[in-house]
């Protein structure tokens, strides 16, 4: 009798206006300042909070958010943000804001991180990994409130990636008023457990390890979401997520399996975004024979990237044409990946005087990373590829990860399979970290390649804020890498997501996980 009343095709009216997202894990905290794990960022960063500035989801350029505009002085050492005046914090059953966001909140949010004597600094353990990686404590000399809606950061040295860091997932703005309230009721730890932010959704309920319930923030400054609820259904098993998607219990699922099945399904869509990372095959340019660019170039012709893509990444990646993925604004489509050509490789090798081949070692990282899910298999494929041009490869992979990293930064390797995941979408994050002369000294440049022309290009790119000029510099730098081949970029891995077709809007981002703002259902 009851059952006859419920036709499964006829969606319930509540579910018509709500989205259930089946996520892969439980968040560690509700404050992205304190963590960098993807699961937590997905659940909190874009849903609950805003940053001073944010990234355009299409080309990852910087767009205004809490700061309606900003100004960087000519010497790059002073950055002033002008805040919007209409930004309201969440109204929940545990907090009712009495004022709109102002400079005090920004000051509070950053001082909590930077000032280790701040009342809130050690509330959740005192660890702010994103800011520690970006060396914010050294970079920021002082933060000054000019007036209620103007705030100025004084930097110790110019750094054009500063803005990208301010727009990073972790640089969210919290409510000072809420923090003060918590002090009076002696519940300071609640600040990261019962979150208050300015984002499109507000916190309603969290059942540990089971689900998170969000409601739309009625006074969201970009306009209230049309959804009635946003629920994160925490489903760690990938088969469980797939089942729930197919059975219509989830509208969107994270990291789906069985891509073909989803693609064939008429009501489901599989989407992917190329992550801001790169897996590469690097040479120690200080050690012979790799001090000879001809040898490096010869090898780059002999690597079958397509085969690696299918075997190691199971197709869940994109061939790397250059160091940076195509979702970066600095990507230059005219630069192509080196073709796969054994004769050309042989010819170059002969030119370099190694016509009979040689023996080399290849260090394969012993852990799994998104940018390289299986370095040992990749090493074996490369071994087979290079045997065709007479090079014998010994694979080194039996070190423990930290020892491996230490030995590689000390330059014990001849060649190495490694990778890099960007912290923020500024392209400099790839160039400076991986290939500059400075990083050859600090050890993050594992090729020890130090090219003055390249260094000048990336320096100039950092000194200007004009995107078009920077594009030109980076394009030249990419061409230089292709000529000199200090490393061979192999692949940019992709992040996948599946959704039911009735969910509309852009969800997936190259950096910063998912964003349900503006997502609708019909």
């Amino acid at each position: 009798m009851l059952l006859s009343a419920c036709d499964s095709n006829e969606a319930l009216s509540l579910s018509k206006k709500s989205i259930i997202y089946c996520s892969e894990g439980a968040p560690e905290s509700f404050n992205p300042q304190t963590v960098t794990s993807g699961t937590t960022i997905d659940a909190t960063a874009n849903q609950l909070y805003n940053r001073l500035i944010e990234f355009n989801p299409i080309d990852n350029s910087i767009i205004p958010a809490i700061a309606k505009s900003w100004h960087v002085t000519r010497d790059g050492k002073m950055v002033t943000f002008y805040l919007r005046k209409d930004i309201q914090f969440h109204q929940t059953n545990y907090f009712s804001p009495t004022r709109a966001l102002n400079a005090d909140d920004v000051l509070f949010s950053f001082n909590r991180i930077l000032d280790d004597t701040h009342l809130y600094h050690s509330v959740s353990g005192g660890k702010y990994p994103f800011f520690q990686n970006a060396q914010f404590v050294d970079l920021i000399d002082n933060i000054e409130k000019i007036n209620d809606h103007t705030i100025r950061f004084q930097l110790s040295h110019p750094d054009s990636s500063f803005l990208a860091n301010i727009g990073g997932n972790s640089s969210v703005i919290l409510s000072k008023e809420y923090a003060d309230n918590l002090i009076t009721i002696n519940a300071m730890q609640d600040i990261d457990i019962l979150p208050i932010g300015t984002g499109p959704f507000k916190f309603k309920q969290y059942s540990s390890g089971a689900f998170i319930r969000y409601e739309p923030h009625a006074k969201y400054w970009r306009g209230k979401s049309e959804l009635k609820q946003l629920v994160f259904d925490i489903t760690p098993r990938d088969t469980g997520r797939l089942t729930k998607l197919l059975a219509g219990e989830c509208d969107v699922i994270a990291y789906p399996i069985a891509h073909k099945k989803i693609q064939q399904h008429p009501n489901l869509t599989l989407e992917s975004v190329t992550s801001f990372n790169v897996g590469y095959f690097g040479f120690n340019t200080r050690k012979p024979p790799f001090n000879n660019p001809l040898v490096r170039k010869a090898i780059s012709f002999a690597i079958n990237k397509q085969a690696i893509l299918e075997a190691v990444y199971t197709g869940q990646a994109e061939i790397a044409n250059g160091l940076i993925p195509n979702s970066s604004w600095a990507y230059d489509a005219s630069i192509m990946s080196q073709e796969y050509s054994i004769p050309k490789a042989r010819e170059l090798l002969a030119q370099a005087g190694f016509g009979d081949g040689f023996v080399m070692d290849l260090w394969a990282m012993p852990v799994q990373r998104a940018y390289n899910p299986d370095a040992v298999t990749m090493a074996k494929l490369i071994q087979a590829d290079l045997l065709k041009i007479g090079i014998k490869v010994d694979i080194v992979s039996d070190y423990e990860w930290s020892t491996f990293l230490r030995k590689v930064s000390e330059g014990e390797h001849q060649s190495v399979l490694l990778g890099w995941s960007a912290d923020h979408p500024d392209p400099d994050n790839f160039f400076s970290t991986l290939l500059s002369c400075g990083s050859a000294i600090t050890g993050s440049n594992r090729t020890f390649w130090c090219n003055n022309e390249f260094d000048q290009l990336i320096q100039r790119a950092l000194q200007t804020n004009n995107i078009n000029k920077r594009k030109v510099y980076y394009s030249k730098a990419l061409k230089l890498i292709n000529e000199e081949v200090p490393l061979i970029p192999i692949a940019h891995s992709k992040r996948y997501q599946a959704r039911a077709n009735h969910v509309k809007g852009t969800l997936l981002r190259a950096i910063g996980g998912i964003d349900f703002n503006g997502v609708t259902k019909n």
Partner: protein
Amino acid sequence: MLIFTLRRFNLFVFTMLLLTILSFSLSFLFPGDQLVNLTGQVNASPEQLAILSDKYQQNTNIVSQYFSYLTHLFHGEMGYSMTSHLPIATEILNRLPATIELTSVALLVAMFVGIPMGFCAAIYHRKVPDNLILTFAMIGYSIPIFWLGILAILVFSIQLGWLPSAGQISLLFEIEYVTGLQLIDILLSDSEYKWQAFQDATRHLILPVIVVALAPATIFVRLARSAMLEVLDTHYIKAANAKGLTFSQIIYRHAMRNAIIKVIRDVGLQFANLITIAMVTEVIFSWPGIGRWLIESIYQRDYTAIQGGLIVLSSFIFIVHIVTDFVYAALNPLAREPQHGA
């Protein structure tokens, strides 16, 4: 009746004694510190441990340690979960109702489907309906539960998309916890989506209930069939027949009542079986019940939870058992007589 009650009470006390001794000794048998296993205080400081050691009388002999454990148990203190750090009692109270709901609905379904089918088979003894029903009972009894559950999800959730595959209710509905029994809580709630929630919860119930109910239903078929055959063979039925009562009068007035009493007795016996099936089903259908929780605790080596879950689940089964015994005794005066050492 008094003697009957006393006998049952006696049995209860002794079983509980054995159960608690088993559970208490588990804390010694599990790896790790016994006190930590017993209390679940994994991150306790030395001072806290000293206080706990005092509370559980760790410095005295094993017998008083056991009695101290019993005292805590009677106060509902079963320690803390090693993984969630919540009191075991809270964890169990949050989950037991879901299991009760699933098993009781399944039991009702099994009874209302199985018993009439069994009677039907007996009435058409050695005819086509009888054979058909027996075939169904045999197949249903032989199918492994986990396989049936996965198959049900594959067909009804994934292929046909008719019914949900996981959970008790869609997460969209916020139902306030009152009794823990979802359907009752929905009816008590004042949500504007009450009826949608009720429908949704019912749809979530269908597959797991069918899976849990299948095996007991087939047992009820066989029990009801043999009970009915036995009754139909008695002299009073023959006499009634001779007196010229119609067939339906015989069945409804005389045979059914007497046959059903024989089946009721076995309902209690089936309950332990039902809980075991429900535990597996809860895992397959992500049903937030105590069975799934207990199995997860085993995976996560949550020793405190295993001990607490064991005690609660077995005493629950035992209590149900005794209750059905009383119902049976109330219905059937013959059972109250002291027979051979009940």
